[in-house]
């Protein structure tokens, strides 16, 4: 009896907080018909926002993946002073408000900031693509590292050692031994990084300037349409983002390690 009570309380909670709200996005987007929704997401502004969102992710995700793997190797295999500190710094983006991330970038690259002179030299960081990429990189940095570190710990170094004694060069060891072992974890981390990069709102909106058709990503577009009372546009763009989110969840399922 108490088992059913617990089960239905949990399912009820999940339904109210999670499932019904996500389902409602689809309902609201299509309640005026699919053609209307399609029209709303194919305006030039919406398409540009989608393109910009994907472009930012296409820069931030590969960089964070490569750096993430190197950082994970350094954290697990490296022996150097300040490793504990490095570990803490890698987790920092998870504990900092995205708005504070954006604020830090504005204060660094804005007028009077340490690197504020770059704008005078014609290198536009704020209210332009570089600032938005930097903000996205910051918030999506920890995911690959966090996924790869436990796997590196678990596989140990015996195989790498064996390959090395057989004369393999370090990069060969990485390519033939280490990488195949962490591939699954890297893929999982990449999916999480991508999800965060596509969905980021607070940090990007602080640095973007939010100019329609120029520096507006899809999440910013959703907010702008809502503020401008174009709710059907906001919901149609939300559906695109929700579909990406569902694709992410499905990928996570497929990539999940077998023992779970």
């Amino acid at each position: 009896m108490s088992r059913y009570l617990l089960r239905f309380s949990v399912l009820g909670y999940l339904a109210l907080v999670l499932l019904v709200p996500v389902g409602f996005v689809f309902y609201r987007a299509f309640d005026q018909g699919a053609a209307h929704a399609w029209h709303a997401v194919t305006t030039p502004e919406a398409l540009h926002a989608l393109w910009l969102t994907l472009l930012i992710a296409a820069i931030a995700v590969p960089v964070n993946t490569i750096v993430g793997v190197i950082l994970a190797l350094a954290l697990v295999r490296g022996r150097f002073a300040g490793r504990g500190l490095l570990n803490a710094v890698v987790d920092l983006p998870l504990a900092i408000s995205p708005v504070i991330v954006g604020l830090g970038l504005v204060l660094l690259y804005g007028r009077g900031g340490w690197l504020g002179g770059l704008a005078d030299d014609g290198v536009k960081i704020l209210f332009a693509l570089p600032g938005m990429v930097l903000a996205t990189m910051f918030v999506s940095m920890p995911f690959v590292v966090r996924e790869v570190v436990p796997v590196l710990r678990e596989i140990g170094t015996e195989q790498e050692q064996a390959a090395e004694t057989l004369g393999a060069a370090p990069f060969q060891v990485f390519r033939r031994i280490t990488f195949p072992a962490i591939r699954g974890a890297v893929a999982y981390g990449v999916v999480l990084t991508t999800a965060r990069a596509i969905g980021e709102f607070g940090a990007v909106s602080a640095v973007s300037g939010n100019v329609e058709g120029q520096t507006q990503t899809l999440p910013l577009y959703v907010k702008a349409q809502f503020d401008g009372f174009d709710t059907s546009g906001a919901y149609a763009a939300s559906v695109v983002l929700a579909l990406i989110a569902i694709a992410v969840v499905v990928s996570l399922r497929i990539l999940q390690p077998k023992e779970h």
Partner: protein
Amino acid sequence: MASNAVAVERAAGAGWSRAGGGLARGVALTYLSLVVLLPLAALAWSARSGGLAAFWHEATEPEAVAALKLTLGLAAVCALVNAIAGTATAWVLVRDGFPGKGLVDAVIDLPFALPTIVAGLTLLALYGPGSPFGVDVAFTRFGILLALLFVTLPFVVRAVQPVLLELDEEMEEAAASLGARPFAVFRRIVFPNLLPAVLSGVALAFARAVGEFGAVVLISGNIPFKTEVSSVYIFGQLQSGNGSGAAAVSVLLLAISLGALLAIGGFRRWRTRWDRV
């Protein structure tokens, strides 16, 4: 044996740094410094640029203090609800069986994948003015809590689930066969084993709730002294050109939330200190 393993690991570490590894590590650390540390340093610098008195004045503006109190209070409530609901969810997903369980398990990750602004938009439509359920919690603290619960839902579930999977049911059966009631079994056997995982999930949920912006900004209505959380206050100060004021509040908020995280981590280590003996 153990020291041998350490020696082997050391040798491999040396191998990595011998060629290329050192350079790659240098590049990665430089990236981390430029992308993560430099903006934070600029933030701290800007917060103290007017002197300590100015910092304190900016950080303790009545509106900022009200926002800070609201943020920390809501994050604490959110963490507490997650501790209970998250553990219960993990329990149902691991120990219970019902059709569609795999699907429920999969959708737990949705808040990680769904952009926060979309979450805020749909929660406002569903539980705000014109709600199909006839409830309107828009522009109230409960509305903000709802948004925070949405975005933090996976943390405790995903932290507790693997531990629960590993947990041997024999201990619980032994306790039950010795006459312990279900609640006693949970309190004396299951709960102590789950506590470290619950606490790490709670810490992540708390940190996320303190900083959340996208999901909250629409449903909160941002009424100063009532429903304005710190992240929204900071954003507002930044928009109105008061960067140093925004920085002062940010530094204070960061200090408090990192302090809370350290405290939770410390409590966790204290509770689990026997495990490492």
